[in-house]
């Protein structure tokens, strides 16, 4: 476990010191400012509009970070050959993958929390009424990003970074469409569509299960069972994807 934490710590430092992260944070803060401006377009819904747009900004920033940084997290180590000195030390390949994913997951948590704090300052200024679900919404963004990161790591174990990004974004889009897919499967009369669609619902994580971003905006209550189920789903997907990544990575030659 100590080795996993040492690698996680180094990965955290690697991403935190990367200029790309700061570019992304500046972009997210600009989106948050834009949310303030957009709020002014409405007479009576300005706070909700700002909050809604602000949460979308946090969601985009954290997802982009998970997909783009996650897709090069391991390939960069291989391309730069830093992995050679690392795996020559007393650590296993599984520990290496776990450490890398844990490090970036921690960065995702820090970025999501940081941006949520900035948004809360804006919303406080507008007179937004905070509920505990403000935190639940941010937590949902992080749960989704953790799944996307695990997906990026999985695709990155056999594909080049560009294709990894493409595959992960494809799953991201499908993942937000799974609920609608369930509806279409029910309505469809085609057996082929029913079988294919059902297969997709099992193979692709339902990312809408982590979407609680409307809850603090419209003061909607989220049943605790739903939160527990989402945590379980996110953890399950992450564990399965990490296990598959390790399986592929275990016998890989670094030539």
């Amino acid at each position, binding site marked *: 476990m*100590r*080795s996993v934490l*040492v*690698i996680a710590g*180094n990965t955290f*430092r*690697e991403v935190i*010191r*990367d200029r790309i992260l700061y570019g992304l944070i500046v972009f997210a803060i600009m989106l948050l400012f834009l949310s303030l401006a957009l709020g002014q377009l409405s007479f009576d819904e300005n706070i909700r509009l700002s909050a809604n747009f602000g949460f979308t900004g946090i969601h985009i920033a954290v997802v982009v970070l998970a997909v783009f940084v996650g897709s090069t997290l391991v390939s960069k180590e291989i391309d*730069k*050959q*830093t*992995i*050679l*000195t*690392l*795996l*020559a*030390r*007393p*650590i*296993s390949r599984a520990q290496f993958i776990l450490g890398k994913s844990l490090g970036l997951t921690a960065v995702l948590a820090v970025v999501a929390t940081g941006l949520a704090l900035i948004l809360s300052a804006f919303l406080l200024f507008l007179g937004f009424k905070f509920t505990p679900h403000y935190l639940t919404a941010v937590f949902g963004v992080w749960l989704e990003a953790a799944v996307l990161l695990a997906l990026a790591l999985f695709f990155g174990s056999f594909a080049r970074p560009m294709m990894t990004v493409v595959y992960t974004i494809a799953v991201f889009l499908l993942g937000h469409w799974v609920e609608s897919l369930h509806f279409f499967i029910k309505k469809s009369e085609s057996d082929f569509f029913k079988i294919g669609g059902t297969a997709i619902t099992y193979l692709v994580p339902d990312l809408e299960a982590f979407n609680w971003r409307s809850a603090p905006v419209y003061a909607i209550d989220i049943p605790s069972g739903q939160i527990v189920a989402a945590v379980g789903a996110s953890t399950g997907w992450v564990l399965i994807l990490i296990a598959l990544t390790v399986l592929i990575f275990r*016998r890989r*030659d*670094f*030539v």
Partner: protein
Amino acid sequence: MSSKPTSASSSSPVLEVVGLRKSYRNPLTRKKLEALKGISFEIEPGTITGFLGANGAGKTTTIKCLLELAFADAGEVVYFGKKGLSNEAKAKIGFLPERPYFYDYLTGREFLKFYASISGRVARHELSSRITQLLERVGLSHAGDRPLRGYSKGMLQRIGIAQALIHRPEFIILDEPMTGLDPDGRHEVREIIREVANQGTAVFFSSHLLPDAETLCEHLVILKKGELIYHGRTDALMNQMASSWRVVHQARPGGVSEAQTVADIAEMQTCIDKIRASGGSIVEVSPQRVSLEEIFVKMAFDKKQSPEAQP
């Protein structure tokens, strides 16, 4: 630089390689390329072994197979008397890869701290002093707090050597450690290698720089197109490949010394017998040494050279 490492099995080889084979497939043609054709050798504790071969001979592939960075198709690797590369064995090994690229966002100190932590062999209380000591030893005291992205190629090579030594390994594998270094840097690395070997650490290093290997290595492992063509003592190879022998003798004890040069060992024996038969005495017999570079070139064109030669 450090105390002598304690080896559990100081008399047994630190590394035994038996019949190591590795092949790759061309991703386009699927044609199989045999990179290693069943090589066997061993490394004794506290010795310096040079690993030589032309480009593409299989040196880096061998090193990667030894460290399971690539997986051998067949063969056996025994570290410190135990089969396979366990974490216990890895903790005793230091490694510097060819063309090292390191985490350039770390400072020299952070970099060494990271590798020390991951090796788990440096106590927390001595970490800082160990890092300072090593930075000094590789001539980077002035750059310890600078990020590696600002380091020159030679500085990266030096910090790479420091990371290989940070946990006081019992065996270090260096892939082309002199590459990119100026003459001063090469001299410094040679001194470091000698120093760690004197402290009981076995050193196995690949190099294209044959003069360095000649002056530094007691043993040589030479590959040619994936096959082992020599494994044994450097001086044995030099003598074996010596082009001629010089026999110095005196017709009578205390008389004038005369020198005679003969072509090979058989001729040398005949010459000695003749001198003795005529009542003369032998003062000195020495091989007329050729350089390792000349031997290497000769071997590159010759067939297999006594791979069974033992230290």
